[in-house]
């Protein structure tokens, strides 16, 4: 059984935020005006947050690139009144934008704060529309959106593999963030396929998951930074 998942090695992450921007570019994520940003209405399916400990000069800082955890037991989907957010049989938690009624219940239910709401319709200058990715729909106002594990890429990969009459290979389907990370901190693949790197990495002694105690069973694993 395929279970797509991600392992992020915090020991390799330099907090450069390339993953963040790669995601924005791949998934047509709009920017908002300064005023809106001040209000806390920016959208970033992948967000690199920094944890700082101690004070100068005894400071330490770790970066947590944070996509949707694609929980195996996602609290967000249970509460959606119209099943506009669901978990696929391959463990990808998706959104159905045209069905979402925008109640934001799922956003409140998600402990990881990775659901983003379109308070207004997205604004693209006419010229900017040219760099929109045709594989990914532009979300309308009033709906919730979040990281999809770049699901559209899986569909493409599947088609290509089928066209070439072969099995799907590990590197056929890589999300934009994993693909771009300059230090290879983000590894993506099938957690249940022993030949995939994630399967081996998730057994690493440094492994941990965010808020594991909540029982959400995230499919995004982190490898703690070495001392």
């Amino acid at each position, binding site marked *: 059984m395929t279970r797509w998942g991600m392992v992020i090695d915090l020991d390799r992450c330099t907090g450069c935020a390339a993953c963040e921007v790669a995601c924005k570019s791949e998934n047509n994520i709009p920017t908002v005006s300064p005023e*809106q940003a001040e*209000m*806390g*209405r920016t959208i970033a399916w992948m*967000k690199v*947050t920094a*944890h700082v400990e101690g004070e100068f000069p005894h400071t330490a800082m770790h970066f*947590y690139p*944070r996509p949707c955890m694609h929980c195996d037991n996602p*609290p967000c989907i*249970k*509460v*959606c*009144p*119209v*099943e*506009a957010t669901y978990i696929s049989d391959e463990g990808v938690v998706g959104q159905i934008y045209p*069905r*979402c*009624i*925008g*109640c*934001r*219940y799922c*956003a*409140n*239910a998600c*402990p*990881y*704060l990775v659901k*983003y*709401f*379109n*308070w*207004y*319709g997205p604004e693209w200058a006419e010229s900017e529309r040219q760099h929109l990715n045709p594989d990914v729909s532009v979300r309308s*106002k*009033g*709906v*919730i959106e979040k990281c999809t594990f770049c699901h559209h890429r899986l569909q493409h990969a599947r088609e290509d593999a089928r066209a070439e009459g072969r099995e799907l290979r590990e590197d056929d389907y890589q999300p934009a963030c994993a693909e771009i990370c300059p230090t290879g901190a983000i590894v993506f693949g099938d957690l249940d396929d022993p030949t995939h790197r994630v399967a081996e990495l998730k057994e690493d002694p440094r492994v941990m998951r*965010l*808020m594991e105690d*909540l029982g*959400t069973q995230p499919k995004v694993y982190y490898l703690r930074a070495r001392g």
Partner: protein
Amino acid sequence: MREDVKAKLDGLPPDERVLLRPLVETSRGFYVVAAILVAVTLWGVFAYYLQVRHGLGRTGLNRPGYWGIYIICFVFFIGISHAGTLISAILRVSKAEWRRAITRSAELITVLVIGFGAIQPIIDLGRPDRVLNVLFHAQLRSPLLWDVISIGLYFTACTIYLYVPMIPDLAIIRDSGIKAPRLYRFLAIGYRGTPVQRWRLERTIGVLSIVVIPIAVSVHTVIGWIFAMTLRPMWHSTIFGPYFVMGAIYSGIAAILIAMVILRKAYGLEGYFKDIHFDYLGRMLLVFSVLWFYFTFAEYLTAFYGGEPGEMRTFWAKLTGPFAIPFWLMVAGCFVIPLTLMARPSTRTPRGTLIASIAVVIGMWLERYNIVVPTSVNPRWEVESIGHYLPSWIEFSIMSATFSGFVLLYMVATKFVPIVSIWEIKEGREAVQEVAERVARYSSSTGF
């Protein structure tokens, strides 16, 4: 008032004369107030138009402050709606005689307020145009859907429960012929007060008053569960179901009291809303203020002892943090003021209960606020929480419109149905004998 109507009215027995007057006689004050309320309501409608046109961005909501005024009002109004039905049902079932005067006004509140409560979550939707998806793509695991169902049921039940006991009165109006004969002939569905009809009526009311109680309880339990079913700090709590029901009844009683005081003044019903009523309801208020404290204390103590960091952030945010003011105002409104006023008989007067009730209503609104907002802006993932929520004028406008809209409809309703149940009052007077016996039976020393 037209002469012939006047004549007819004067021709009626005393109860009818007093209680039907408002249906045919309307003061200027009424129109003035109504006009103001209409204005406020229309303003709110305009605000909503803007919100739908431009998006929820027009509100002060944000991430993680996903929910605000609308959800607060939702919980608040549905709470108020427990005024009538539940209380009048309980009183009916327990055959409390003094209920007779107050049930009608209470049930009226219920029916009207449910509507206004129920539209709140729809106002809160990012895509109201898709609200029907709730039916087309219903997903029964979602507490929101449980709400849709139980509120739907509740509304139907309450409407029937308001209507059935009203039939005899409608018949009375029909027969008095003082107002819209066609309308009342239709509404009275040929009720003539024959023993059979009378018996059927009593049966139905009996059954209904039993049925509505569990429904009413379910409604507010489920609303509590909307929050409790998430993993959010200070939402994820088993006490929320009962806590919400209790709070609902509490605010309900307060609402009735306010309504009664006003009606009493406006329509000179001193003969019906007697001090005894205020005294009794005052006592209930007292009981509930204590209950409220008990529940609240239990809830916070549990959170505090758990000491789970996520919980504690919200906990302190409420007690000492940015939400300290609304929190302690709430404690004053829901506990201190009603307790001090209702504990002393000398202040269980109409005025005293009025003050207490207003305090309670405000307090209960603040309680909803203290439940919804502090948790929203203190998510478990605190690292990048924005943590502030300032409602926009749009939200305030829509909230005021909801209040004014409700009062407006209530006022208008009093122009169509007697706000005190005439036939029940009468029945009461006749039943004195039987009641005395009943009382004697369970108070007499010699049991059978």
